[in-house]
Every structure is written in C-alpha cells, then in structure tokens.
C-alpha cells in the first residue's frame, strides 16, 4: 500500500515535469547539442572558433525581435510588422544622418523611438479597437514597408562603416582583439544578449508587467474583473515588442551597414518561429524568454551550419518548418490533448 502510493507520487511528479515547459526546453537543449555535434563531425571547417562567432553575430537581430514578440504572443496576439519595421526604422535613421547631418546617437534614439511608437499603435489597435492582432500588425507591416521607401525616395541607406566617424558603434557588438597570430573577433554582443535575456526573463516572471501579460493571455476577463487596467498593460506588451524591434533595427545596421528598402518581410517569421519552438504557446498564457533564446540559437545554428555540409538555405527552411511543427505537437501533447 505504502509502496504503491510513493510510486504513484513519483509517476505524478514525472508526468507533471513532462507536461511542464521546462521539459520542452530540455528537449531543445538536447537537440542543440546533437545538431552542433553533427555539424562538428561532418565538416572540419565548421570546427573553427570563428564559426561560433558567426553563429552569434548571425542571431543578434533575430534574437532581439524574438524576445520582443514573446510578449504579444503570450497575450495571445502576434506582431507581423517587426521585419519591415526594422528596415523602415533603420532606413529613416540612416536618412537622418546622411541627408540632414544628424549625429549618430540621435539617429539611434529616433530609430528605437519609432519602434516604440509603432508598438503603441499596434497595441492600441488590438487592445482598444479590438482588431485581431494578425490583421492589425499585417496592416502596420505594409505601412512600414511603404513608408520607409516613400520617405527615402526608394533609395537605400547606409550606417557608418569601416573608418567612418561614428562607426565605433559597431564595436558594441564585436570587439577585435589583436593576438600573436593576427586578429580575433570577440562576440561582445553575445554578452549584451545574455544580459537582456536574463533581464527580460525576470521582467516576465517577477514583475507586474510580466504577470499581467501572462494573465491577459490566460484569462483576460478575470483580470479585468479584478480591477486591473487591462488596456494599459495590453498596449504595454506591444510596446515592449516595438522597443525590441527598434533595438533590432540598430543591430541590423551595425552588422550589415547597407539597408535596402522593400526588404525585411519574413524576418519576423524566424523570430516568431523561434519563440514558439522555445515553448511560448500561440494561444497565449505561457512563455519563456530563455526558451525563445534557445529557439533562436537553433535557427541560427541551422542557417550557419547547413552551408558547411553542402546544403543550402532551402534545407534550412524545410528543417526549421519541421522543427516548428514538432514543437507545436509536443506543446499540444503536453497539455493533455
């Protein structure tokens, strides 16, 4: 009798763990390790330190968008305007610098500010006007796509690069250290990213912003009835996404310098996919910033690693699609469907 009871308890604890999102993240970590190991064994060139640097620098702007979109996703919403928004804001930032002679710090502030403003607009449309998030952010996606081109007359923009004054802002993301054998890049940006993941994880789990975001996603009515200003916090979730899109815009400019109008549509799909792979439910109510980080790591590993074994980016899309489907299936199974 006593033995049966303790076995029951252990079974219960085990199935509770399997149903938890922590288990999903554990699977993700295992997949990451296996995949890295596979590329390591399959390609000698992959094994270099510089490949790790490349995986890092490839993921910065996607990770920032993914951290941002985790919040609207948890409220049961979405944000499709991140990709074209990123391009639009950095285009306008470069335009202000090149044509109007604005200093770098002002352009960076405006770029980020535009992201926050668009986030507020998205949030207002979804929370106050009750427009479905998919439609609202689809509309702002098209708006950003057009606006960037119109304001710059269809021309591409460049942010400071190389030896130009102001180009030092790129060192925030990557430091070049002189060693005995030459130069070694240090992915400084990764440190900032990990810090941001920790901060936003705490925001999501330990602050009012985070708890209300989760509550809006799991039971908005109950939250409203308990007297909380749901409108404010709902809009705030979208503004967080907008803020991070602004960060992503600056990061993209730091990595690629040349911004072309009309690009960007589709960037957000990697970010949204990563968040879902990382355990954020599309129906809302739960999510994890750390899980999102793992999801982006996986996508970046695929993007960088597949060319090393001779498979081009078509395969990366195929495999990422498969993993996304797998993640959603595990999520459904977890929740006892």
């Amino acid at each position, binding site marked *: 009798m006593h033995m049966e009871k303790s076995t029951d308890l252990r079974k219960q604890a085990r199935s509770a763990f399997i149903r938890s999102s922590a288990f999903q993240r554990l699977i993700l970590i295992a997949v990451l390790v296996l995949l890295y190991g596979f590329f390591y064994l399959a390609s000698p060139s992959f094994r270099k330190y510089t490949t790790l640097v490349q995986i890092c620098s490839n993921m910065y702007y996607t990770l920032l968008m993914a951290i941002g979109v985790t919040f609207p996703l948890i409220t049961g919403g979405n944000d499709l305007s991140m990709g074209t928004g990123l391009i639009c804001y950095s285009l306008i930032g470069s335009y202000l610098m090149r044509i109007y002679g604005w200093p770098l710090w002002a352009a960076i502030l405006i770029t980020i500010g535009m992201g926050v403003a668009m986030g507020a607009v998205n949030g207002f449309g979804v929370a106050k006007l009750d427009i479905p998030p998919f439609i609202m952010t689809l509309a702002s996606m098209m708006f950003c796509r057009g606006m960037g081109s119109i304001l710059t007359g269809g*021309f591409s923009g460049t942010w400071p690069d190389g030896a130009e004054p102001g180009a030092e802002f790129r060192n925030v993301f990557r430091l070049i250290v002189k060693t005995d054998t030459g130069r070694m890049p240090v992915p400084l940006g990764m440190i900032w990213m990990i810090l941001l993941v920790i901060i936003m994880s705490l925001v999501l789990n330990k602050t009012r912003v985070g708890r209300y975001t989760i509550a809006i996603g799991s039971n908005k009515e109950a939250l409203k009835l308990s007297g909380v200003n749901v409108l404010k916090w709902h809009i705030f979730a979208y503004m967080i996404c907008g803020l991070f899109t602004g960060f992503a815009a600056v990061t993209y400019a730091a990595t690629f*310098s040349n911004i072309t109008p009309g690009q960007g549509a589709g960037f957000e799909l990697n970010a949204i996919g990563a968040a879902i792979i990382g355990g954020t439910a599309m129906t809302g109510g739960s999510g994890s910033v750390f899980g999102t980080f793992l999801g982006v790591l996986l996508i970046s590993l695929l993007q960088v690693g597949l060319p090393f074994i001779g498979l081009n980016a078509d395969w990366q899309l195929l495999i990422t699609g498969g993993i996304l489907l797998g993640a959603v299936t595990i999520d459904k199974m977890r929740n006892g469907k």
Partner: protein
Amino acid sequence: MKKLVALVLALVMVLGLTAAFADDYHFEIVSKGFQSTYWQAVLKGATEEVEKINAEGKDKITMNFVGPDSESDVAQQVQQFTSALNAAPAAIGFAAVDQNAFNDLLKEALEKKIPIIGFDSGVPGAPEGAVYANASTNNYVAGTVAAEGMWEKIVARIEAAPGTVRIGEVNQDATGESVTQRGLGFIDKIIELAAAKGWKVAVIGNEFYVNGVKGEKAAEADAKIIIEAKVPAQSTVELCANEASVLLNEDDLISVFGSNQVAAEGVVAADKNLFKCGTGDDTVIAVGFDSGATLKAAIREGVMYGAVTQSPVGIGKVTIDLLLASAKGEPVADTDTGCAFYTLENIDTPEIADNLYD
C-alpha cells in the same frame, strides 16, 4: 459671324491640343529592383537623360521606373510588367529577374506592337521580335575581365603552391542572365588561363554553374585548381555572407569572386569575422562587382583587392535613347555599355570614378 469665330476658335483649340500631344512619350521601365545602389545609378542616368531631352523642347518624355523588392521576387515583377503593359506606353524598358517567366507577356507586347528595350541583363530567350534592342554590359565578357584581373595577382601563388588551390565564386542566383553569364565567364576564363600553364581545373558546387561551364573540367583528384561555385536560396546579403563564410573557412582558398554587388557585399560581411581577405600573399584575394559604399570602402581599406565596374549611369541613359528611337519607329541596335577592372591604383581615375556610385 459669331458662328464663324466660334468655329475658328474651336479648330484652333483642337489643333493646339493635338500639338500638345504630338511629341509626348510615356515609357514604363521595369528594372530588377532597388536592391542595390547600382539600380539607383541606372535610375539616375535615365532621369538625367529624360530631363535633358525634355529641356531640348522637341520631345516630351515621362517615365515610370519600377522594380520588385528583391531580385528573387519573380511574381512581383510579373505583376509590375503586366501593369506596365496595361498602361499602354510608347515603349517598355525591361530587365528580367527570371529568363523564363515572361514569355506570354512578351508575346502580348509583340501583338500590341509595344517596343521592348532590354537593359542590364535584358530578356534573353524572349520571343522573336519582341525585344528591339539591348543596352547592357556584355556580362560574359565582364566575368572574363574579373578573372583576368584576379589571375595577375594569384598566378605566382598557384605556381608556388605545393598542392591544390581553391578559388571560390559566390553568385546571388542561378536564374538572372547577368549573374549567370558573369559566373560562367569567370570560370571559363580561369580554365583557359590555367590550361595555358598546363594546369587542370575542377569545378564543384552549384549544379547550374558546374554544368554550364564550356571549358574542359578535370576530376577533383587530378586538378591543380578547384573552383567552387556557391548560390544561396535567396538573393540577400545575409545569405550570400553565409555561403561566403563556408568558402573563407577552407584552408586552401586563395581567392574569391562575388559576381554582383550583393554577393560581393556578402563576401565583405563574412570576412568581418574571419579576416581572411586582403592584398598580401598570405591572404585571400577578393574580387567583387559593381561598386557601392561598402565595396569602395573595402577596396580602400585593402580588404577587397579589386572589382569590375559596369556603367550603370550609361545604361540608364542609353536605355532612354533607345526607348525614344524605338517609339518613333527608328531602327535600333544592341549597345554594349562596357566594363572595366579597378583596384586601389586606378579607383580615382576619371574613367573609373565616373561610373562608381554610393
């Protein structure tokens, strides 16, 4: 009397109207996009020529210059070309992103007797008589010019190398005429130059380029030089950079060719983490195509050895001239707008500098 005056006035008005419409031409120009500042230079050349012709007073031209968001957006360009046809212009300038997607639309233009002037990569494989003339660089020749410019710098290293050496090529696609012709021209020329030295060349990588090469290919095991051609899934700088990284990570790589501005910028972006490219004997010799702020800076800093420039402003100008002539029913002929290899040594000379842009 009043009736007569009214009739005369009406007649004058009508005559005046027809005079106003007499020399008006509207052209639709569908380019491959605004993806690089190259296309903006083409637009600049076209705009300047339109302004110049309008200022002369004899003909009045209006132009609508459009392009898809990226050079892999075939569907979008098909839509834009359809709109251009529906606008019933005097003539259409066209640079196709895909050589095979426009046959029906081109037949329609032929039936409607709307002249088509190809520019840049033009419209190879178009139905007979649809395209009246082309204003472009001979892209195959441009690829050979890149190969010759690179060869001068690397031939001594190949001689001194104990084993095989690798030459990389990053092509943004395997569908557009300009990129494919440059890619193939480059590989064919390397094979020719190597054969003169008695060296065998193997070609590996993307199937289109491997199979399209005209020169004689050897097996990898027998070759002194291996040429590896890479093509990303979409024509963006980020994906070209990933392909370039794979090449730059190979220890036997001595040089790499980016066959258009996007691919060359991808090489530069990839090198930012790897520091392999340069102009010294132990570095990877990178050769690019076209210009733009990123490539010009890379050449000035010694990261990129050199590049081939076309004359995009010239292409824009010649396209407008050909459009006007074909709209008037005058005979038109293909015009080669030329290309040149430039390095740090000649980047500031007038012949080169006038064709470079940001």
